[in-house]
């Protein structure tokens, strides 16, 4: 491997410690204040895509009074182009459980749940076996924090945290109004910390290495490493753990097929970056954030087809609860079809861009709000492909 290559990191998938659950056992001996201080210092931000500072989320939930609190691991990985959580849960599940247990201690929760998407049901037998091991261990050291598993049933929207709670409560996965936020009112209306699979593993890594060493990776806005799911037109698709804050052109140099036209960063709900902007785009919270999804497209691909595929996806996965999203997704899809068929003039695209902006402002949850990300970045950068 030449040294011009992006630095590979081996934290998330690194080997377990020799003694089972050693880092967890050591961390449980520390005070909650120390743990929170370390997390705050590390600058860790949630790895699901939204990037909320993890220490703050935990602190708010810890401060909310209440006997009954929950820790939930969001493993409803449904964003197109993302498959890292499946890999984490099948390769290093104990690290996930440990991170959850640490959270349980800090916020004072006595129960944890993993919400696993239905598409990953095949992981269950192994996961349950590992979980039995964890639950036994917890019992043996007197830790009152069992972890259970709940399955989804094929609804992308349930990755939205409040929709996920609704689903766990046996209801339709329709997002709630916010506030209140989960830190005060989450699962069953109780204070809840809900984090992405990878975030919990990061917590454990910070506990093992200390915040100083964690901070050596990444940039000041985007600390640490990140697991990227690389797919599309690339000779080497797969899972890669890389430092945050890398420039996109270096990423493309390494993962592209030499003919990369665009990279969709952050999945269907993320942003499309065209070739001319690779150089000035940073992957991280200071630039284009991502939950890990990196899809590469070469010049043989029609960006109209890409956008059409995303819009169909959103149209089907919209929960239908709020009008901007339910109707907006349909109209955007119908609109680009009409322009393509010359039933509408190309100026109609401007109307559609306005519609997507309205959705960003008025949709109830992240699904409807983020359709504009891919819509405007593809339409604005590849206008001629939309029309001809």
């Amino acid at each position: 491997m030449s040294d011009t290559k992006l630095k590979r990191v081996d934290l998330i998938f690194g080997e377990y410690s020799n003694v089972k659950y050693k880092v967890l056992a050591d961390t449980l001996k520390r005070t909650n204040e120390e743990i929170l201080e370390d997390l705050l210092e590390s600058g860790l931000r949630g790895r699901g895509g939204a990037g909320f500072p993890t220490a703050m989320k935990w602190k708010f939930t810890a401060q909310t009074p209440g006997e009954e609190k929950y820790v939930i691991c969001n493993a409803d990985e449904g964003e197109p182009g993302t498959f890292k959580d499946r890999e984490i849960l099948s390769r290093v599940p104990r690290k996930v459980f440990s991170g959850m247990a640490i959270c349980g201690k800090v916020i004072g929760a006595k129960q944890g749940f993993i919400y696993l998407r239905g598409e990953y049901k095949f992981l269950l037998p192994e996961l349950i076996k590992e979980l039995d091991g964890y639950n036994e261990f917890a019992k043996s050291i007197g830790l009152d924090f069992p972890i259970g598993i709940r399955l989804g049933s094929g609804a992308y929207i349930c990755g939205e945290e409040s929709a996920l709670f609704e689903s766990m409560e046996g209801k339709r996965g329709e997002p709630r109004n916010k506030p209140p936020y989960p830190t005060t009112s989450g699962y069953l209306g109780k204070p809840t910390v809900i984090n992405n699979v990878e975030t919990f593993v990061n917590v454990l890594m910070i506990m093992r290495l200390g915040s100083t060493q964690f901070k050596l990776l990444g940039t000041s806005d985007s600390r640490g490493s990140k697991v990227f799911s690389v797919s599309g037109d690339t000779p080497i698709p797969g899972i890669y753990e890389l430092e945050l804050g890398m420039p996109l052109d270096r990423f493309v140099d390494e993962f592209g097929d030499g003919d990369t036209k665009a990279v969709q960063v952050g999945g269907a709900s993320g942003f499309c970056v065209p070739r001319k902007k690779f150089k000035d785009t940073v992957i991280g919270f200071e630039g284009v954030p991502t939950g890990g999804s990196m899809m590469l497209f070469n010049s043989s691909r029609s960006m109209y087809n890409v956008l059409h595929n995303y819009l169909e996806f959103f149209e089907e996965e919209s929960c239908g609860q709020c009008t901007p999203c339910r109707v907006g997704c349909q109209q955007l899809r119908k609109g680009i079809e009409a322009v393509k068929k010359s039933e509408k003039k190309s100026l109609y695209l401007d109307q559609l861009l306005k519609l997507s902006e309205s959705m960003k402002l008025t949709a109830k949850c992240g699904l409807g709000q983020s359709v504009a990300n891919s819509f405007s970045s593809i339409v604005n950068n590849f206008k001629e492909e939309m029309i001809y």
Partner: protein
Amino acid sequence: MATNNNYITELVDKHGRARTSLMPILQGVIEKNNFISDQDMTEIAMELDLSPAQVYGTATFYSFLETQPRGKYVIRVCKTITCDMHGKRTVVQTIEDMLKIKVGETSPNKKFTLLETNCLGWCHEGPAMLINEKPFSGLTPEKVHDIISEYMHK
């Protein structure tokens, strides 16, 4: 009214009667029958002291909680972008030709249902599909042919 379906009673006994048990119970019915009938929903509603409309509302929200009869093997081919780019259409075509059904249909012998679905999380190895809960990735027409043949003989 007495419960007619033993499996509903079993599922309710296993998971409990709280509303939070509704998803696991519905998923249990799918595991057993591949679809949830109106009668199942009414019985679950009675057991959990909910209105049938609430159970129906939940069941019909989720794409994997089928409420119409499905084949013994439900094939779900991923249609999201990277699988689409890497040959999803030929995969679907192969299955359609072999089973003589179109997407959305169930074979006359009730053995197979062919559906398309959104991202399955195998984007790096697309095209991909699920047969019931089992994933298959890196599909080519030849590979699909072998897999479906095997299931046809099951």
